C-alpha cells in the first residue's frame, strides 16, 4: 500500500497539472506578483471553471496554461509534458474579436486545417458549421454576424483542429443574458458529445455552477487557490433545485459576496 502511494504512475493522475505555479510581471523594474503557488490537477474530459474577483489573474492563469506566457516559478504539464508554448492541440477562445474579420465563416473554421486535403477540410468545416448552427452563413463575413454567432464561430474554429483541451476566456462575457444562456447550453451539448477537457474562465457565479464539474475559486491579487468546489449535480442541471441553490450560495460566500444587495 505504502509503495503504491509513493510510486507515481507515468501520467500522473491528471491530464493537466499545475505545480506551485507562480507568476509576476515586471513593471518599472518592480516585480508585481499576480499568481502564487497555484496547484491544480485536471483530469481528462473534466470541465473546470475558474472564478475570482476581477483583475485577480484568471486570464493570466489561462494564458500560462495555453503557453502564451511562461510562469516565473513552478511547472505546468499536460500528459506529463511541460507546456512550452502555444500548441494547436490546446486552443484558447477569446472573449471578443477572436475571429478573423477578413475571413468568411468557412475561412475561419478552416483556418487551422491547411495541412488537410481539400475534401477532408471541406468535410470538417461542414461538420462544425452544422454543429455550431451556422448553416446558411458559410460565406458570410464576421462583420455581418451577431455577437453570439461570432462566439460560436470561434468555438467551431477551435474544435475543428480537434484539440484535447479548450481554454475559454470569458467567452460569453460580452453577450446579452439570453444569448449567454443559450450558448451555455450549446457548449454543454458539445462537451457531452465530444468530451474535451475544458478550462473556462468566468466572473459569473451562475455560469460556473451551471457548467462546471469543479469550480476553482481564486483569491484577489496575488491570487492563490482559495477553494475548489465540486458541483455534484448531473446534467441537465435544474437551476432552481435546492442543491443548485445551495452550491451557488456556497460559491457566493466563498467569493465573499453577501446574499442580499
Amino acid at each position, binding site marked *: 500500500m505504502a509503495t503504491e502511494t509513493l510510486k507515481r504512475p507515468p501520467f500522473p493522475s491528471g491530464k493537466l497539472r499545475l505545480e506551485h505555479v507562480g507568476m509576476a510581471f515586471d513593471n518599472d523594474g518592480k516585480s508585481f506578483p499576480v499568481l502564487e503557488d497555484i496547484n491544480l490537477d485536471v483530469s481528462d474530459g473534466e470541465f473546470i471553471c475558474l472564478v475570482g474577483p476581477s483583475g485577480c489573474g484568471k486570464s493570466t492563469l489561462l494564458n500560462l496554461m*495555453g503557453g*502564451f506566457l511562461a510562469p516565473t516559478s513552478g511547472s505546468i504539464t499536460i500528459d506529463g509534458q511541460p507546456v512550452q*508554448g*502555444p*500548441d*494547436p492541440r*490546446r*486552443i*484558447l477562445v*477569446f472573449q*471578443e*474579436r*477572436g475571429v*478573423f*474579420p*477578413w*475571413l468568411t465563416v468557412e475561412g475561419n473554421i478552416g*483556418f*487551422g486545417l*491547411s495541412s488537410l486535403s481539400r475534401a477532408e477540410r471541406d468535410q470538417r468545416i461542414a461538420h462544425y458549421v452544422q454543429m455550431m448552427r451556422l448553416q446558411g*452563413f458559410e460565406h458570410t*463575413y*464576421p*462583420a*455581418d*454576424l*451577431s455577437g453570439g*454567432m461570432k462566439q460560436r464561430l470561434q468555438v467551431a474554429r477551435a474544435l475543428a*483542429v480537434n484539440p484535447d483541451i479548450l481554454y475559454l476566456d470569458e467567452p460569453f462575457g460580452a453577450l446579452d443574458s439570453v444569448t449567454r444562456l443559450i450558448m451555455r447550453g450549446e457548449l454543454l451539448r458539445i462537451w457531452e458529445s465530444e468530451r474535451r477537457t475544458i478550462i473556462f474562465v468566468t466572473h459569473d457565479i451562475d455560469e460556473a455552477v451551471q457548467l462546471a464539474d469543479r469550480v476553482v475559486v481564486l483569491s484577489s491579487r496575488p491570487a492563490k487557490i482559495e477553494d475548489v468546489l465540486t458541483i455534484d449535480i448531473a446534467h441537465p442541471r435544474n437551476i432552481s433545485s435546492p442543491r443548485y441553490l445551495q452550491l451557488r450560495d456556497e460559491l457566493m460566500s466563498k467569493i465573499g459576496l453577501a446574499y442580499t444587495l
Partner: protein
Amino acid sequence: MTAIEPEKRSTSVSLSVWLRPVAFILLLLILWQIAVSRHPEQLLPGPWAVLKGIGELLHHGLLLKYVVASLFRVTWGFALAAVLAIPLGLTLGWYRRGDMAFNPLVQIFRPISPLAWIPLAILWFGVGDLAAIFLIFVGCFFPLLLTAMSAVQNIPAVYINVGRNFGMSTAQFVSRVLYPAVVPQLITGSRITMGIAWLVVVAAEMIAVNSGLGFLIVDARNAGNRYDLVVAGMVLIGIIGLLLDLGMRSLERVKSFRWSYSED
C-alpha cells in the same frame, strides 16, 4: 444576420449621389464663363477656352502623350517606393528595436519636401525620367514606410495570439495573419501617398523633363502665354487625380478588406 448589405441600395439613390456634384460643377462652370465674358481683360481664361485648349492638345496628339508620360513616372516612383518601403516598414514595425532605431531617422527625413531633392536628383540622374521618378520615389517612400510600421503595431494582439495558437510556420503566419491584418491600413495609406505622388510629378516635370502635364503648364506659359493651356493642364491633373483616388477607393470596398472600415 444583422447589417444590411450596402450593395442593395436602390439605384435612384446612387444616381442622385452622382448627379448632385456633377450638376454643381456645371453650375460653377456656367458662372465662370459668365464672369469671364463680363470682364474681357482676362485674368483667367474661361471654361470654353480651356475646353478648346484641351481639344487642341488632343488634336496634336499631345494630350495622351503627356498624360501617359506623367502616369508612367508616378507608377514607377510609387511602385518602387511601395516595394521597398512596405516590407521594410512591416519588419521595422514588428520588431520594437527596429522601430526604436529607425524612427528618429525617419522623422528627420520625413519633413524634407521631396522638391528639396530636385538639385540632387538632377545631379545624380541628369535631366530626364529617372530624376522625376526618383523625386516621386522619395515623396512616397516615407509616408508608405510610416503607414506600414503603424499598421503592424496596430494589429490587435488577439489576432497574433490566435495565429500563434494554431501552430503556423513564420511564412504561414505572415501570409495568413499579418498580411490580411495590415492590408486595409496599407490601402488607406497608399491612397494618401498616391495623392502625394501626383503632386510631386507635376513639380518634377516643371524642372527635370520635357514631357508630361507639369511640363505642359510651364511650357504653355513660356512659349507664348497660352494660359488656356495652363488651365487645361491644371484641369487634367485634377481629373486624373480624382480617377486615381476613385481607383484606390474601389479597393476599400473589396469584401475581405472592408472589415476595418466598418464597425468593430
